[in-house]
């Protein structure tokens, strides 16, 4: 009897102390889901979703207060990744099936004002004052910030030209069978 009480007391207090210590020491700061979601988002902080940058959007997604289709530059790939992460159905019908775009400088009317490359969140524009600006295709996320600040409308989002490397077969179209006449 005595031994049972003592051993259980010791065991209980030891476990309690350990749990109390672990709760303090191993405390998780914030929701880890937010960080995981942020890792999925493009991270260009373009603000097209209406939140101040990708961190805000990730928080809203984790709180389930924003739809997973909120990120226009992310496109379908991000929607699918988010659906997988959050365990919700990806309703791709909401995603505007916009063709992948890319910023392009119309060289005749670029005045070299440097405004676009100052706002580009991924440093995808090269240029200098009074010099022609140019876009690195591989780095452009088509966030559209440059388009907004351009005074001469010389930088515009254009659909990415299809190259031999990126081309692939379209999905076969199944036509409904015609009824067989008797």
């Amino acid at each position: 009897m005595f031994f049972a009480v003592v051993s259980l007391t010791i065991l209980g207090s030891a476990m309690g102390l350990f749990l109390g210590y672990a709760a303090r020491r191993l405390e998780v700061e914030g929701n880890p889901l937010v960080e995981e979601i942020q890792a999925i988002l493009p991270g260009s902080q373009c603000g097209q979703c209406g939140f101040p940058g990708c961190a805000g959007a990730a928080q809203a997604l984790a709180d389930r207060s924003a739809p997973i289709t909120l990120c226009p530059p992310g496109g379908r790939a991000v929607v699918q990744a988010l659906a997988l992460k959050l365990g919700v159905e990806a309703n791709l019908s909401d995603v505007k099936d916009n063709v992948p775009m890319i910023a392009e400088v119309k060289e005749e009317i670029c005045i070299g004002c440097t405004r676009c490359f100052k706002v580009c969140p991924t440093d995808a524009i090269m240029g200098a004052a009074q010099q022609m600006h140019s876009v690195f295709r591989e780095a452009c996320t088509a966030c559209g910030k440059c388009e907004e600040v351009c005074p001469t409308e010389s930088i515009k989002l254009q659909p990415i030209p299809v190259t031999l490397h990126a081309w692939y077969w379209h999905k076969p179209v199944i036509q409904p069978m015609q009824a067989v006449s008797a």
Partner: protein
Amino acid sequence: MKLFRLRGGVHPESRKELAADRAIRVLPMPGRLYVPLLQHVGAPAQPLVNVGDKVLKGQLIGAGQGVISAPIHAPTSGRVLAIGDFPAAHPSGLTAPTITIEADGEDRWLETEVASDPFALTPDEIAARVAAAGIVGMGGATFPSAVKLNLSRKNRVRTLIINGGECEPYITCDDRLMRERAAEIVEGVRLIRHAVGAIEIMVGIEENKPAALAAMQAAAMGTEVRVIAVPAMYPMGWDKQMIRALTGREVPADGRTADIGVLVHNVATAYAVRDAVRFGRPLVSRLVTVSGGSVVEPGNLEVPIGTLVETLFQYCGGFAGKPARMVLGGPMMGVELATAAVPIVKGSSGVLALTSGEIGSVQPAPCIRCSSCVRACPVGLLPLDMAAHIRAGDSTGSVALGLKDCIACGCCSFVCPSHIPLVHYFNFAKGELMEQERVKLKQEATKKLADARNERIARIARERAEAAAKRKAAREAKERAAKEAAAKAATEVV
């Protein structure tokens, strides 16, 4: 010799009789050649010539870049007319970077280093010569051959298999090559063996090519090369099927043939290796079968790389009536050409002009789950289930069923009684998955850029703040010093 059981496969009508008995003819040099910089699996070649440069036949005009790549050589002597985009032999009809050469009619070779005894060369030298000659797998896979040689030597392959399958209907260029140039092929085979140190050498030839079998057997007499007849069925020319027939071994799903100690090369590749090692001549021409019901005079032509497909058709007497479809390669795996104004590349084994009677145009009907495609699949996949996943928009689900192992041979589409375009589904899904992968990679890259930029902006702001603080401190110190000096002066005055 005992052959091993094979999985799947179909028996399409061979239609090889159209061109099989036509001896190889050399195509007269066309006026202009369009040599694409990417004719192989891997990175495109980097152009080494400028517009207006004079080039000799066999001169290096494009250098391979990276580990998996192949150099490109001038197919004739002449002048570089242009370097730019030209329609590629591709179903999309898009353009690809191409070097255009205007032939001067002399067809003068660059002086090359002839090896008096190629068997005295070390394996390294042979591999280097093959690499420098820009040889790629000529059965259609166009994988750089030197990479395969080096990989095989590293893995100490035991068995060298030379693929004379040529299972695609209509195509007869390898058949003709074996009939007419068997001795050269056998020499090439022995050089490859010398380069990789294989113990066993087998040449597998489909039994529907008795003349080629006889010629090769005669040429291989007295050498260590064994020529073996294999059953005629499609896709016998798939390297892994050939390995299974001759050795009974199976290449693991995500492995290479070298993993099980086997190296497979095409007969035409062996021929090109002999040219490269003995005469130092790069791969600048190849045999192409011109066939199909619309071609007046089908045949087998030796064509410089970069010749337009239309030139080949013209040389073969043009068309008897408008062809319903033009195909580059065989009818099972070849690609439909929108225009005949595209160049022949290193991997082009044939060009076909088919009549409407030769092509099927039946509307697809629903799947009846007869599982004919499962029995036909040489890889052992479930084409009907894979296609169902893809049709429902779940390409990822089809990967779990083995989409990545699909070789797009077309057996399933061929046997489907409902005419479902199964291979089309698989090609689409493979493309879609690759596209998703590309998007993901780009997103990771742009995220790094965005992070770097944010960090830089924060650093600049911090440096500015620090500089401002420093200036402020300096100003204050100066003011304090001035004040103290003033105070001192005042006390001195007092």
